[in-house]
């Protein structure tokens, strides 16, 4: 990593910090929560659901943007990737740095699928552009995290196209909440809900 990269990274950080505070939509309730039981583990009676809707133009198809949905802890360390969509090309997946924030220091998280085996999902017909993800309170290694403050990131990008980032601070304890996250040019809208497990 050279120094100009370092600089751009730092400036990006400060922009992100601005974004994070700007997007804050649950400030009073969540931020004022006491840190009682800070070392308590995530309560497994709960789960967090993230619903996103990809912006589509009515009646027209769009290429799905590259996107990543993940959580970071209060120190800014990525702890769990809920979803990652990238385009593959040439030999194997192109883990595009276009997903700038997710890509930062996540090379270690890359998973390489066997070349012969492609993965896909069978389901009843989905509605165009609607995707849901849930978080069970575990990190990428499968360990339950502590209760506390986390930030949810929804990042979307297109090669040679736009770059969008939604950030939402969340206080994870034993109080349910629901929030609408503002949309952007790629993600029409998103909601996050912390709720009792169904």
């Amino acid at each position, binding site marked *: 990593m050279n120094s100009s990269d370092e600089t751009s990274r730092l400036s990006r950080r400060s922009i992100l910090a601005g974004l994070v505070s700007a997007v804050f939509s649950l400030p009073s309730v969540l931020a004022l929560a006491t840190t009682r039981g800070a070392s308590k583990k995530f309560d497994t009676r709960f789960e967090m659901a993230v619903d996103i809707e990809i912006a589509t133009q009515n009646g027209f*198809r769009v290429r799905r943007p590259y996107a990543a949905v993940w959580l970071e802890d209060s120190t800014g360390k990525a702890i769990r990737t809920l979803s990652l969509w990238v385009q593959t090309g040439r*030999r194997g997946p192109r883990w595009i740095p276009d997903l700038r924030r997710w890509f930062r220091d996540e090379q270690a998280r890359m998973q390489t699928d066997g070349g*012969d*085996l*492609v993965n*896909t999902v*069978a389901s*009843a017909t*989905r509605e165009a552009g609607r995707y849901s*993800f849930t978080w069970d309170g575990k990190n990428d290694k499968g360990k339950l995290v502590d209760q506390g403050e986390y930030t949810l990131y929804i990042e979307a990008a297109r090669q040679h196209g736009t770059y969008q980032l939604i950030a939402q601070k969340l206080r994870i304890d034993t109080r349910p909440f629901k929030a609408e996250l503002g949309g952007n040019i790629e993600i029409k809208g998103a909601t996050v809900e912390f709720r009792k497990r169904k």
Partner: protein
Amino acid sequence: MMAFGRRKTLYQHRADYEGVLGTSLEIQVGSRSKTAGREVEDQVLAEIDRLEGIFSVYRADSEFNLWQATRSVAVPVSSELAFVLSESEQWRTESNGAFLPVVEALTKVWRERALGALHDKLVDLDPSQPMWEVDLPALTATRLTEHPASLNAIAKGFIVDRCVEVAREVESVKQVLINIGGDLRHWGVGAAQVAVANPNDGAENSQPLCTVNLSNKAMATSGGYRRGFTVDGQRHSHIFDPVNMKPAINVKSVSCIAKTAMEADILATILGVLLPEEGLAFADRNDSVGAFVVGKTGNCYQNKAWEELRTPNRT
């Protein structure tokens, strides 16, 4: 998995779209050339556009909708429409009316009820009545029914098949996977590892109910958990049971494996209205048809052909 010496390094191309036939489209191509994947993508999109112009129920000017405006006359139709209409009629008879494209009439009534219509229009469907007559050699079709029909439960599978056909024609393509909104088909070397979504947990990253290794086969899934109607505060499946003319309640989700996506699509639709045991028995009429059923209480049922393709659970 296949393992020939020289064939480890296929160029992989993947493309994902939203808003294709009202749902999502996933294309995965393995080929020996850098450009074949792109070419497959272009050809697949062009083929979908062409077929949407034939089968769409949403486009007033689709060939199917124009044909639906006629009745009791033999109308010249495209070979694609003739084939799909003919297969529909054949499967209606074979399934004793469990496969019935004219349940669209019920869909229309329920859509109005969901929007607040108070009247309860009576729709009198007779599953034993032929819906239309097709002359395949002459490429004509005569519409007999008075009811509106939808080919959604068969055309999507047919379109997946056609996409695979055009993809494999592209030079140096060795492996293709087409997935339109959850209905899919694999062709070529290797296999696709297919995760079957849990109808009780619609999240993309949730644990799948099971995974299946699919090689040169197709899979379709039917279930009321993604689409439906809310009437008087109660949610109903968008799938109708032609026997009692009500939203299907016998199963939560059904997945079928067959040689073609069209057959898988039809079978999933049929099993989607039958009881689990009846459904598996229907699937077993053909040895190579795999079936996996999630009953209304969440119990899972599978036949032998399905079990043989299942991969061990990763927990």
